[in-house]
């Protein structure tokens, strides 16, 4: 466990990072106008407060570069997924073999795991559908022939590395 | 046919449908839904009136537009009250939640059920 001071530090850093993010969101919404800035700062402050309250800062070291890569991959995968589904839908033979796959999931419970599920739901042909009794991820897939388990394990590794969590779950 | 006229016809159809639903449908929740449809039709007529009044560089007369906003909020409040009544009336446990004369003075009966 981290010390109280370090914990406080982490909170401050997280709060600032998030506040800057929300301020950027505000600027995108309202455009850059000096007169609007006080309201924007207020909005960012309120949003950061709420965000800290609902989602306390994690205690791992995030890697910004890896996160950026992850986001790009996220977008790229959603494009691939769209093509995948479109091809299946338009193919006269309707190449579908829908079914359920059970995968091991090593992300810690809570928001991190939900975040991973959300990412996974944009993968081609995959749709996480909750967990079974042992805490394994239940995935609905369009084609049970896909190597679902391996695909997801790869994705999870990338995800955890970007969030600086892999050492805990190696 | 202008946009306003087209939506005027739409609004008259919605009013008729909503009114029919409110009168005929036996289910109270669906009466409420139909009432909302009727309300949407009326508000849409307001919108048509506003659109027809486009002038002074505005796409529509702002007065009716503002009135619709007020109306939508009031309609929501009405829906909430009506839904609360329906739920209280039809919920399975509503029967035993009805107060007897003795408790209607407002005394707490079971001390907070904590």
């Amino acid at each position, binding site marked *: 466990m981290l010390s109280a001071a370090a914990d406080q530090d982490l909170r401050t850093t997280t709060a600032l990072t998030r506040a800057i993010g929300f301020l950027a969101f505000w600027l995108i919404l309202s455009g850059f106008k000096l007169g609007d800035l006080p309201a924007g700062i207020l*909005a960012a402050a309120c949003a950061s407060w709420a965000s800290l309250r609902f989602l306390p800062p994690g205690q791992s070291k995030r890697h910004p570069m890896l996160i950026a890569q992850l986001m790009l991959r996220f977008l790229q995968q959603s494009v691939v997924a769209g093509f995948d589904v479109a091809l299946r839908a338009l193919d006269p033979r309707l190449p579908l073999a829908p079914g359920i796959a059970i995968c091991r999931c090593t992300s810690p419970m809570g928001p991190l795991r939900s975040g991973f599920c*959300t990412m996974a739901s944009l993968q081609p042909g995959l749709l996480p559908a909750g967990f079974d009794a042992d805490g394994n991820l239940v995935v609905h897939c369009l084609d049970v022939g896909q190597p679902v388990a391996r695909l997801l394990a790869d994705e999870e590794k990338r995800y955890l590395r970007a969030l600086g969590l892999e050492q805990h779950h190696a | 046919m202008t946009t306003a006229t*087209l939506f005027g016809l739409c609004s008259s159809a919605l009013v008729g449908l909503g009114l029919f639903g409110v009168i005929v449908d036996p289910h109270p929740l669906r009466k409420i839904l139909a009432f909302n449809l009727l309300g949407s039709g009326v508000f849409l007529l307001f919108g048509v009136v506003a659109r027809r009044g486009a002038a002074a560089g505005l796409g529509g007369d702002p007065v009716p537009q503002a009135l619709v906003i007020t109306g939508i909020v009031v309609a929501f409040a009405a829906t909430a009250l009506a839904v609360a009544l329906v739920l209280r009336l039809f*919920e399975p446990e509503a029967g035993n939640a009805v107060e007897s004369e003795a408790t209607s003075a407002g005394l*707490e009966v079971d001390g907070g059920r904590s």
Partner: protein
Amino acid sequence: MAAAFDIGLIVLLVGIGAWMIVVRDVVVATIIFVVFGLLMAIAWVRLSAVDVALTEAAIGSGITGTLLLGAAARLKGADAGGTRLSFPITVVAAVLCAMISASLAAVALLLTYPAPTLAPMAMQNLDQTGLGNPVAAVLFAYRALDTLLEKVVLLLALVGVWSLAPDRAWRGVPSLDTTVPPSDILAFFAQILPPFGIVFAIYMTWTGASNPGGAFQGGTVLAVMWLLVMMAGVMRAPSISNVWLRWLLVAGPALFLIVGFTGVFIADGFLAYPPAYAKALIVAVEAALAVSIAATLGLLAAGPPERMQQK
């Protein structure tokens, strides 16, 4: 092409409305209504009423959805069917409604141009309010009395909803908060979305003075976010006797009333603003109203208190 789009939209709207009336299942009818509300938002955009479109999108989809879908789900088990009207009466009702529809359609077709409008007058006086959005000027200056009374209507509806609480649950909590497993995706949604919702709500309220938007829309977004965190169990529903909560409910209308009476002394009378401070006063009132509207709408959708808070 624009006209073709309008016709398509209208056909869809009427078709969905009719479908909602005829479909059997209550839950399905409710979902159709939510869909209808979303389409209405597009219709309002086509009528150049972006302010209304924002309101409809916020109230029609977000908060009415919660209210009605929750109710429909609860009523599923209960036998809520009333008595069905006899066939002749149904026919009479249909004929009556068709007549009303037809006469409205006739009015819509026969209305002549130039249509009467207050738009020029609203624009002429806009300077005195300091606002850039004429709809906001109507709501908070020209016809501020309506807006103030409507706030009271909202509060009153809430008192009405609360009055349906069983006596034993008075001072209790609405049964909206639930306990869901921490990994649940709903909780995740409720953790990440609300901060963005808050920024958007404040943006709506703030920008309402000069662009489409305003306290209603901002307040509704806040209310939806609040409902989301309560439903996901991230935040607990408050007890209705919570002092803070009651102050929040009243803050907006109270400030509006105070500003209104101040106008008697510093401007032309009740609900008048001195032109120099008009915008500042209106924005302050809108900000307070947004918070009160959020609290009121959220609690309206949450329903009457049903049980005491667990300690």
